[in-house]
């Protein structure tokens, strides 16, 4: 479904991703872990099409298409969804209006009929229930004045409505208490299907107890330095990221 080959990304002169390779198949859940500043968000944002980042070399193929040439909206219409680490506040635009416009452009791109206001409201109510969200949030401007937890839920709520093929969740767990975490994980798991893939970016292993990954990768200093199954997450938790540092020096010395 998704194939990233030797991806290099910079901001100005600063190279952030230094050759990332990653393959995600349909139906799979991948976790990307790594310390702060290792480039996880950069990778997530580049996949969504954020233009402050320059791809200096490498390829990203999504469902057989070159993702890097597409505008962000086209990527979304192709089925890519990014749950932002820091969701943006948009004063004056109601959540409901925004999300219905989004859903309808995506449906149009997929050759489906537009959904009317009544049906949309019903759909939104169902998904809000799933995420145990306050209905008032729908009438409010997008993310404006939302608490940290409300913002994260709102991201997952949007994902539930838009039903992407590839969902990338960037630190969706940060700032959530354990109950909220379970609810969010539930929402994500509800989307799991053989047709979809999910990439969970996280810093802690905690979320992975609820969204159990097929593959875990460790991104360190702009490269994926390790991949393994879910036990890798536990190992990281136990030994800390410092362990990678030693490990990497070892492997560098042995080369």
């Amino acid at each position, binding site marked *: 479904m998704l194939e990233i080959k030797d991806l290099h990304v910079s901001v100005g002169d600063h190279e952030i991703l230094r050759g990332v390779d990653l393959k995600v198949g349909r139906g799979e859940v991948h976790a990307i872990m790594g310390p702060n500043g290792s480039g996880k968000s950069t990778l997530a944002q580049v996949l*969504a*099409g*954020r*233009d*402050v980042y320059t791809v200096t070399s490498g390829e990203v193929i999504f469902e057989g298409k070159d993702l890097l040439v597409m*505008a*962000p*909206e086209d*990527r*979304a*219409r192709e089925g890519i*969804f*990014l749950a*932002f680490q820091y*969701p*943006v*506040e*948009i*004063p*004056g*635009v109601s959540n409901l209006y*925004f*999300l219905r*416009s*989004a*859903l309808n*452009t*995506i449906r149009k*791109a997929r050759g489906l009929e537009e959904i009317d206001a009544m049906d949309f409201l019903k759909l939104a109510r169902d998904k809000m229930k799933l995420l145990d969200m306050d209905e008032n949030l729908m009438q409010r*401007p*997008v993310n404006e004045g939302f608490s940290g937890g409300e913002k994260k839920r709102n991201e997952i709520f*949007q994902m539930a409505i*838009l039903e992407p093929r590839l969902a990338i969740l960037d630190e969706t767990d940060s700032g959530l208490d354990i109950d909220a975490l379970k609810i969010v994980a539930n929402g994500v798991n509800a989307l799991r299907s053989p047709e979809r893939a999910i990439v969970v970016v996280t810093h802690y292993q905690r979320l992975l107890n609820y969204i159990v990954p097929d593959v875990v990768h460790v991104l360190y200093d702009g490269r994926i330095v390790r991949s393994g199954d879910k036990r890798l997450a536990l190992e990281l938790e136990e030994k800390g990221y410092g362990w990678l540092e030693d490990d990497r020096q070892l492997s560098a010395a042995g080369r």
Partner: protein
Amino acid sequence: MTAVKGQQDQYFAHFAALEERLSGTEPEWLRAVRKSAIERFGDLGFPTTRDEEWRFTSVAPIARRAFRPPPERVSPADARFGQSERADFAHCTLLVFVNGRYVEELASPNGLPAGVRVRSLRAALASEPETLEPHLARYVPFERNAFAALNTALMEDGAFVEVGKDVALERPIYLLFLAAPLPGKSAPAAYHPRNLIVVGRGSQATVVEHYLSAGGAGYFTNAVTEAVVGDNARLDYTKVQQESGDAYHIATVQVHQARFSSVTTRVVALGGVLNREDTCTVLDGEGAESLLQGLYVIHGRQHVDNHTTIDHAQPHCSSRELYKGVLDGASNGVFNGKIIVRRGAQKTDSKQSNKNLLLSESAVINTKPQLEIYADDVKCTHGATIGQMDPEAVFYLRSRGIGLEEARAMLIEAFANDILDRIPLAPLRTRLQRALTDKLAAKGQPAGTGASPAGERVSVLVEEA
């Protein structure tokens, strides 16, 4: 002030003709007012950019141009205007003015409660000028304002809204000023609409004054509105300027507030090539409160200058001011917000804010607060922002599948809706929101087409009798 002589003489000719036409019909006080006004206009001349109040706005294009006086009569040969507008505004008391004249056939001044009268100024002047005498030209400082002086000298028509005491007027009063094409090849006209709104003690009223092009081109609207609001009275006043893309629009709104009165003044500017709005409120009674809101959305070579004055003349008054601007193309905006706190106006509480969204590199905004505070126990804050569209917000919307243009439009509308959402007339709100969307979509459209503003379908044919 240095006068631009330019085409000033033509207005003296207009005045002479008007004086002759009106001779013997107007009361002495009014003749005296007109006379001093035209003299004042003669002394002041058109302002130039050497005048501090006009530093960023050159009215040379107006001063240089030849304008004819308004046609003496208009008759709506084809009142196609009306279908959708009438339906939309059926719940209002509607007065329609075409090319400066009240057109009775297009109006529906019906259903007013006792104590409320809404008439054309011309009718009131003809039949009961004494009802106007206490207020007309008593508030607007025409001795310092050449355009207000010109209007006062040449005013012929407009609306006279009288709300007596203790009436809560539920129907909004909607005053529509249409500029239709003139017949033949005559020069464009200069119009001097004049409105007077009197809201008596303890009453409530909503008034909308809407200038709208109906195909007229290159004309000059020079409007003045005075509003007098009594003790404990409330007024919600909205002025909308949607003149043709090549029209000139200069306006003064002067509001006078008594004790514990509450007034909202909203000024929306979308059209015209050169637009100056002087919006002044005098808080002349304890406990009065005033809310000033403004929105300007301009592109191409449009120039809009908002000069506001809030004059805290008495203690314990509050004012809130928010002006927002969206500027695209090579458009030019000016905001000058003056707050005066007079000696003795203690416990004044005043907040001012001007926010601008620049959509292009060549758009320019000059924004300046101007505080003149002569009391010591006051709270006055002000702030101005000038910013571009937030790229993170644009990206966020796009990442959800919304296209670039639509994302930008959504953010601009959201910015403007802060002001538009508060317009008390739903159909007007909807129309303006649509006009805004269409305007943004047609952003490259050059000024000078004389077309009706986008989103409005108004058609009035006018014959000169």
